[in-house]
């Protein structure tokens, strides 16, 4: 009864899906990586530019997807560039997703070990987390989107409240001078300010699941606008609150910002613990997105059942979690993931769009 097509999600769900896929551990480290690359307080301008660079990327992806309604990239890539090239492309994408999933959990485990559970073996944090993710992901995209919709308001509300309290140490002079070193630092930081949007490839999967693909453009732009806005807010508040020297030397600058003030007379005096605990949920969402995409990708590429793939993904993700040996490795991996993201974007979106355009418009083929 009520035969609602359970693979479909509404526009608001798609928006939040994209937001949650992009918004993960990045927000905790982003101010450092961007500021480090630039060494100037102008990072907020870079974030703005990065946001305007990422918008057309999203638009391009949505346009490509709308040509193949109801199909994910795993299904239509083969149709554009031929079966085997398409498969290789998708496998690269899947590998990329597995690596990010591992990266997210590892970051979470590092943060968790550092702040919450000192002395706990790392597998004790990682394993339950992957298992909980398995349970959610096995419910399919609809369940995932629903959980996102429950968790998203909680995490964002808490983040905003914490930021609101941090205004008391906000000092505008930390953000000045603007453009003191000219344009060059902006370009240096541009790379890291685009890398924080890793995961936006999910667009090419969720558009296929939308109940109403006509709203796809709006929903996806909205989905990228939320992290964009939050990143902007974060960089302004963190740099403004801590000054760039502190930001560059801090491992988790966002947490350090919240840590650097106390609210006396409130039930919790310091907000960084609650914020981190709440942010765990956001990282869970983030991880589940990549878990879901990787499982879905393999199951669609090789016509294996989705449920089986989830179980097979579990050890793979676990291994990819455990590969980095130290926190330095982890951050290096984070940068590498960003670069992979750019290359994959060139390979998948740009290449596929080009080939499609040449074949349909140039050679008048029917794809």
């Amino acid at each position, binding site marked *: 009864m009520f035969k609602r097509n359970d693979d479909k999600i509404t526009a608001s769900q798609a928006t939040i899906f994209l937001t949650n896929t992009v918004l993960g551990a990045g927000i905790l480290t982003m101010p450092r990586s961007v500021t480090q690359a630039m060494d100037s307080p102008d990072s907020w301008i870079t974030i703005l530019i990065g946001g305007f660079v990422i918008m057309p990327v999203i638009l391009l992806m949505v346009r490509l997807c709308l040509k193949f309604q109801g199909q994910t990239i795993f299904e239509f890539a083969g149709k554009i560039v031929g079966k085997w090239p398409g498969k290789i492309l998708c496998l690269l994408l899947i590998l990329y997703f597995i690596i990010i999933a591992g990266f997210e959990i590892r970051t979470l485990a590092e943060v968790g070990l550092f702040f919450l559970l000192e002395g*706990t073996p790392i597998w004790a944090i990682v394993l339950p987390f992957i298992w909980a993710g*398995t349970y959610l992901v096995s419910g399919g995209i609809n369940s995932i989107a629903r959980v996102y*919709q*429950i968790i998203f308001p909680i995490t964002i509300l808490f983040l905003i409240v914490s930021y609101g309290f941090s205004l008391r140490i906000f000092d505008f002079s930390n953000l000045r001078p603007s453009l003191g070193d000219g344009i060059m630092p902006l370009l240096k930081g541009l790379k890291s300010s685009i890398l924080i949007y890793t995961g936006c490839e999910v667009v090419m999967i969720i558009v296929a699941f939308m109940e109403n693909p006509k709203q796809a453009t709006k929903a996806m732009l909205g989905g990228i606008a939320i992290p964009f806005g939050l990143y902007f807010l974060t960089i302004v508040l963190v740099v403004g609150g801590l000054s760039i020297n502190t930001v560059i030397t801090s491992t988790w600058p966002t947490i350090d910002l919240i840590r650097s003030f106390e609210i006396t007379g409130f039930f919790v*005096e310091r907000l960084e613990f609650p914020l981190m605990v709440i942010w765990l949920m956001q990282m869970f969402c983030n991880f589940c997105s990549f878990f879901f995409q990787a499982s879905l990708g393999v199951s669609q590429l090789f016509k294996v059942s989705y449920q089986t793939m989830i179980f097979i993904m579990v*050890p793979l993700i676990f291994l990819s979690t455990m590969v980095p040996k130290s926190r330095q490795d982890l951050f290096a991996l984070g940068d590498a993931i960003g670069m992979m993201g750019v290359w994959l974007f060139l390979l998948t979106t740009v290449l596929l769009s080009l080939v499609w355009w040449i074949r349909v418009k140039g050679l008048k083929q029917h794809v």
Partner: protein
Amino acid sequence: MSAVIKYIPDWIIFIQAFIAFSVPLLLYFLYTKLYHFVGKTPSPNVNRPNEKKEPDEVNVPFTGSFEKDMEIIQELIGGNCDFRTREFTMAKLNRRAILVYVDGMQNDRLLNVKVLEYLMFEATAEDMGLPLKAAELLPFESLIEAGDIGAFNRSVLFGHTGLIIEGFPKGLLIELPDGANRAVTEPVSEALLRGPRLGFTEVLSENTSMLRRQGFTDQLVMKTYRVGTRLKKDLVIAYMKDIVNEDLLREVDSRIEKMNMDFLAESGYVEQLIEDNYLSPFQQVQNTERPDRVINEIVAGRIGILLDGTPFALIVPATFTMLLQSPEDYYERWLPSTLLRMLRFLAAFLALMAPALYISLISFHPGLIPTELAITIIETRQGVPFPSLIEVLILEVAIEILREAGIRLPKPIGPAMGIVGGLIIGDAAVQAGIVSPFLVIVVAVTAISSFSIPTYSAGFTLRLLRFVGMIFAAVLGMYGTILFFLLMCSHLTKLKSFGVPYLTPLTPYRLQDWKDIFLRVPFTLMKKRPAMFKTRNRRKST
């Protein structure tokens, strides 16, 4: 190359990866096995030819001969000690007749006397002469003809008064059963300050009449089913013909038809036989004693299920938010109702999470609480020899036992025992150094919060899950508590009640339906029925 080899994890990691792989797989197989094992109820539609016909299906037709019919009836049911007969002669007709009934099931003695008086002295040949017209001419309000002796016997034993007249080849059932009943009282499990004081009773006809009396309409449909394979009972589903979704109706119909149980003692049986997921801790069917609640839900597009013999009606499909809503929300003005509703959500959260939060804060992250408070708590815990999980378990289990005992205690000593149990044991436990005073506060707040849930059965779920949450918290602290919350959310999103996702209308966001979850907006703004049931007629008012 060597750089890559350096990063290949060692064999312990691979063993852990294998564990990571096998545990969910194992759980999955266990779950599916268990699910199929529990769900393996034989369908009644399957014919089992080698089984004998049910013994109560005797279909002996009336012979028409007075003595012979009576002989058969006596032989079949005459052995019962409460079986009574009263033989008499109809004076004007000069025929013999007999009244058969079961002792104690006709309360109205006066009517009995009148019936006898009429039959013995007034019934004339004209009235009774034509056998076919008997039913039309006899001055009884309720008169059913029983075609065969089996059906006649069953009805007599159920409380009808049977009448057999010489030369008339049918049994007449002239009076409805009227056994001992309870008076209509206020619903005990769902008391309200404001609102009707009417609660369902054990009699189905009274319950349906209570629903009918809610308002004039010809759209309220009540459909009867006979359920139970051995002791049959009446079950009624009630819905608004012009509102209910056809598919939902069909689904409810088919699930009720599929029930296979020899006797359904209470609507809880029905609930458990028709629910979607019997391994879930969440109830997927709402139960209530209040007719006003049932009619409200029916008008919103849901379906009510009433069973004979129980004051608890069922409402399907149920969703999560229903568990925290009370009819009073709509009777009071919207501002206080909104406040109360938010308070209830908070209470539900506390009832579920408070002990888990206590454990994770005390054992894992005392730094989270303000320093002075943390010092005080730790000081008071100094004499406590147990880890916080054991400490919480001691008091939580004690409270649960108190609650359970409180239900069974005789009314006059109930409150007294509550005071003895709650206050004295709590105080003594602190004095004896078994638990810390702060924990007594936590447990008391938890217990009080769980009483503020409007539906009793929903409270069960929270009580059950509270213990699960405590174990998670004891193992992994705050991280475990968050994992528990995430797992619960994941489970809830997968759950469905009659095809309606359990978390609608919380997700997906539908602004229309959100007016009635955390808030209760003024009625002027609630012009549409909840979208989740896909009702036929969306508008409530124009």
